[in-house]
């Protein structure tokens, strides 16, 4: 069967690409490259979501069920302890937990994705950061679904909705940037050292319990307050929780720190990634 080739579609520009040994990736080049591979980004996210939901019997319901079950457990266990101080404990917990869960899942999934797609990266030329970006994007889609569940729960239990919710997109953007930076750094390092993924996976629960997600900050004794202050996740989680639960904009200082952390994470993550990327192929 003959295929009709459309020669006119082929660019006649013959764009030049030059790769010099030892040269780290360039920011502008990578962004352009990802834009040129927008359809692959779409396909990766699409595959990530459909495969995930096809494989589980409950399909999309699972996204709903997971936070519901967790909420049930945590609310039953902890509301007796914390309810007095924290009215609508379920909203207090879930508004922070969805943000945390996005961060924890995305970083771990990004490392798994690079390991999983290693054979692919050896056979086709794609922008190396694309898999990490794709994992972050599908993580954001899942985060949106979790938020839908959270808002439904809030409506059912009669938790108040505030105008401050309009600020939430800014918080989520900062959360996404922070997570992308951390994922870039971790994927780059995990390509060189396979055990990094397990270490991060093991360390995640520890960081979660060091962050006031299931407990109110108020119960932390004064002599341990510094532990909260130096934990970057506290600020990142707080800017998401404030507009949902407290019904206020994040405090200026918290927002400033969170913004610096988000862009600092992206800058450092990209720095690590761009310098290690030219040597990935030897370790995939």
């Amino acid at each position, binding site marked *: *069967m003959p*295929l*009709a*080739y*459309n*020669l006119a*579609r*082929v*660019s006649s*520009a*013959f*764009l*030049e*690409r*030059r*790769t*010099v*040994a*030892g*040269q780290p990736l360039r920011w502008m080049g990578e962004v352009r490259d990802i834009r*040129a*591979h*927008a*359809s*692959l980004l*779409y*396909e990766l996210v699409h*595959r990530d979501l*459909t*495969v995930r939901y*096809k*494989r589980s019997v409950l399909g999309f319901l699972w996204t709903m069920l997971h936070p519901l079950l967790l909420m049930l457990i945590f609310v039953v266990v902890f509301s007796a302890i914390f309810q007095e101080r924290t009215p609508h404990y379920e909203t207090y917990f879930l508004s922070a937990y969805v943000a945390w869960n996005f961060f924890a899942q995305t970083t771990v999934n990004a490392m798994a994705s690079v390991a999983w797609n290693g*054979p*692919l*990266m*050896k*056979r*086709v*030329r*794609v922008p190396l950061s694309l898999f990490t970006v794709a994992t972050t994007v599908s993580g954001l889609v899942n985060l949106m679904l979790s938020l839908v569940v959270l808002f439904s729960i809030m409506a059912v239990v009669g938790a108040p909705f505030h105008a401050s919710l309009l600020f939430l997109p800014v918080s989520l953007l900062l959360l996404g940037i922070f997570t992308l930076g951390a994922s870039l750094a971790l994927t780059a390092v995990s390509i*060189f*050292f*396979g*055990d*990094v993924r397990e*270490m991060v996976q093991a360390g995640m629960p520890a960081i979660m319990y060091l962050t006031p997600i299931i407990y109110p900050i108020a119960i932390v004794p004064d002599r341990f307050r510094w532990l909260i202050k130096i934990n970057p996740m506290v600020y990142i989680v707080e800017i998401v929780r404030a507009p949902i639960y407290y019904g206020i904009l994040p405090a200026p200082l918290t927002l400033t720190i969170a913004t610096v952390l988000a862009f600092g994470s992206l800058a450092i993550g990209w720095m690590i990634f761009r310098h290690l*990327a*030219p*040597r990935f*192929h*030897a*370790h995939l």
Partner: protein
Amino acid sequence: MNVIELQQVSVRYRETKIRSLKEAVIRSVTAHQKSGFFYSLHDVSLTIRHGEIVGIVGPNGAGKSTLLRVAAGIIAPSEGAVVTRGTVAPVMELGTGFDSELSGRENIYFNGALLGFSRAYMRSRIDDIIAFSGIEPFIDAPLRTYSTGMVARLAFAVATAIDAETILLDEIFAVGDAAFRAQCQGRIERFVNRGATVVIVSHDLEPLETLCSRAVWVSGGRIRGDGAVAQVLADYRRSMAG
């Protein structure tokens, strides 16, 4: 115009590979000397001009595939520089990037995207690809229900639907029967007629003799011969026999 230029390119790997952070820490304490390097390509300079059909030959482990991967931009050189002009599409292994959970149709879109084609473009081509694959009745079933032969046919149909200025083919004659090879050869001729540049790595010398005008002989990470196909293949055969 040169579509591919390798300028004194070397690709090297560490002889002892460190796989974990634990190992790296232990080694930094105990090991006193740095591990040596293994050169997969050593100081290779090669220029391929627009419209050429070049065959690359050499024994196992000579660096042929590495050469193709460097040219495709899949791996970065450890030394030297690589310049390419126009789109360069590598066809490395048929079926790369297929997902067994996705249907045949979804896999076509995914593979098209891997090669940098938009969904809209793939949509305009998908009927041709499906027809050419000859597995139309099963195209919406998950790939895991396919036989090996069906997967190979689908992969071939997708891979050869590519529309790039330079096409790099790695051992595509190695799989499939005689009919499949004839199909491959027909497709390559079509690429050539379209004015594409084609670089073919093959163990099988016969198809190269008829398809290529130029051959490059690679051995031990270096270029041993480069010129008219008949001459280079004759030299290569003599060295293999002797």
